[in-house]
């Protein structure tokens, strides 16, 4: 904080040119990001009001709100919204709940803790297409998967998870990727908790449960908020995992909003309809983003 004040004071005294050269150094990045964020946005909005199909040139012109109307009255769209909500909420509950517990667990001293931690956070670094195919084939394949073998070993009949429970299974795969993210962030936050504070509570005779609720959880609240909001942004547009496991099916059983827009755009070439879906996705993401930006802003020391 003070370092920055000195810096700005110094420059204000030193040279009027400082402001100009600062702006000059900032300009390229701002310009690039401005173009990147405004042009596609405006185009999406524009297309969403047009009749525009890549394979049907006879279809063109202003469509009014028809694309929106068509989308909103499509049961597939409602199903995809529901699936999006299931995916976001389910993975958030698993990753934040589990992540908090695991952060506390891996904050304890035990033999080989360092290695165990590395193992737990690893799935976060695995690319989505690999994660999804590992689970689909090596783990959950009804004949050759390890989980199916384990089920047979205890006398159960293996289940074709992705056929029988497509949305639930996709959710579990995505949770496997994002739980480690939550652990990574929350463990870092737990470790910044003052050891003296923990000891003082211990001396006061606070039990483990009381310590968790009165010391650890309040300390973690900000990190938890950050995890929830960053995950929400990513989870709203999960795509690759669905594409390589179920391709949105059976039917639309595991189609989320992102996959629906993709299939409208690049499988059915309906630019107008896909763009209307895109606008809706942007609106939903912005609602979540508003909270994130506000939460980060509160801790921004400028």
């Amino acid at each position: 904080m003070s370092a920055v004040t000195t810096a700005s004071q110094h420059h204000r005294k030193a040279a009027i040119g400082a402001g100009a050269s600062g702006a000059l150094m900032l300009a390229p990045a701002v310009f690039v990001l401005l173009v990147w964020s405004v042009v596609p946005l405006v185009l999406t909005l524009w297309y969403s009001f047009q009749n525009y199909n890549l394979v049907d040139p006879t279809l063109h012109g202003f469509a009014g709100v028809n694309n929106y109307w068509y989308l909103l009255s499509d049961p597939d769209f409602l199903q995809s919204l529901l699936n999006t909500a299931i995916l976001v909420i389910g993975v958030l509950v698993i990753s934040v709940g589990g992540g908090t517990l695991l952060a506390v667990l891996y904050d304890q001293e035990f033999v080989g803790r360092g290695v165990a931690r590395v193992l737990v956070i690893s799935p976060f670094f695995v690319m989505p297409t690999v994660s999804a195919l590992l689970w689909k084939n090596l783990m959950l394949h009804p004949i050759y998967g390890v989980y199916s073998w384990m089920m047979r070993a205890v006398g159960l009949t293996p289940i074709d998870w992705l056929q029988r429970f497509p949305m639930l299974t996709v959710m579990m795969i995505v949770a496997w990727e994002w739980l480690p993210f939550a652990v990574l962030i929350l463990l870092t936050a737990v470790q910044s908790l003052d050891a003296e504070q923990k000891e003082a509570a211990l001396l006061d005779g606070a039990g483990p449960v009381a310590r968790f609720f009165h010391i650890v959880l309040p300390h973690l609240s900000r990190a938890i908020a950050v995890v929830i909001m960053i995950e929400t942004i990513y989870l709203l547009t999960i795509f690759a995992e669905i594409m390589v496991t179920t391709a949105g099916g059976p039917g639309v059983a595991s189609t989320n909003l992102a996959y629906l827009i993709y299939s409208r755009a690049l499988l059915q070439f309906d630019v107008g309809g896909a763009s209307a879906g895109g606008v809706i996705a942007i609106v939903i993401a912005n609602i979540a983003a508003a909270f994130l930006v506000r939460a980060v802003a509160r801790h921004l020391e400028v």
Partner: protein
Amino acid sequence: MAGQRARGKSLVIAAVGWVVAIWIFFPIFWMFLTSFKGEAGAIATPPRLFFVPTLESYHEVFQRANYWRVTFNTLGVSIGATVVALLFSIPAAYAMAFLPGKRTRGTLLWMLSTRMLPPVGVLVPIYLIARNTHLLDTVTGLALVDMFTNMPITVWMLYTFFREIPVPILEAGRMDGANRWQEITRVLLPLATPGIASTALLSMILCWNEAFWSLNLTSSNAAPLAAFIASFSSPEGLFFGKLSAASTLAVAPILAFGWISQKQLVRGLTFGAVK
């Protein structure tokens, strides 16, 4: 008594900690193992934990005509996007950290908010722009998109690192007659090397693993590893050995990077909110 109970408790914690860790890591371990089993061994029932390792699956992956091309594509996209993003981000982060003005805070938050744009929301225009500019299915096109999406993160991460550099050191350089260019290249960059390295690493990891644009903007020419692996999804899906070998090759470098730099990555991933 009390000592015994404490030891019992720490044994339970160690046991739970290890069981959970092994369970979570198991799919990655199994992928690694399966990559050395060959196709027949990969689908043997019951699954084999002990076997004679073979490099057969790796040989077959290497022999696929496009494997090396895919790897070079991934490297090209990751390195290209990272270098260009840093060229834009370093001056911007410098200006905001050392020459802050009234609008600095607003600019930082605005940059953060551009990161919140869901990629699927702009899939249609980006796809059409790429097609019309002949950037569809090119390394340049994918690298550009990755650079745009990661720039808010690189600016932010660099900004938080630059903020930790004591201003008097930079001032001392200026007293010695260094101009702004020399101040940045001779004083700031050497001091900030670890921070810049972590930022570059995070950008590389994000580009390497990026799947959405890779799947939608590339096909046979510029497909990176994330898209190449997806080609194992349907008819070839049953070749567990080859899938595992290709996956291991795609994942191993990033896992190693992630293990080394987990601490520094947290800062970039949370926009400096958690350190």
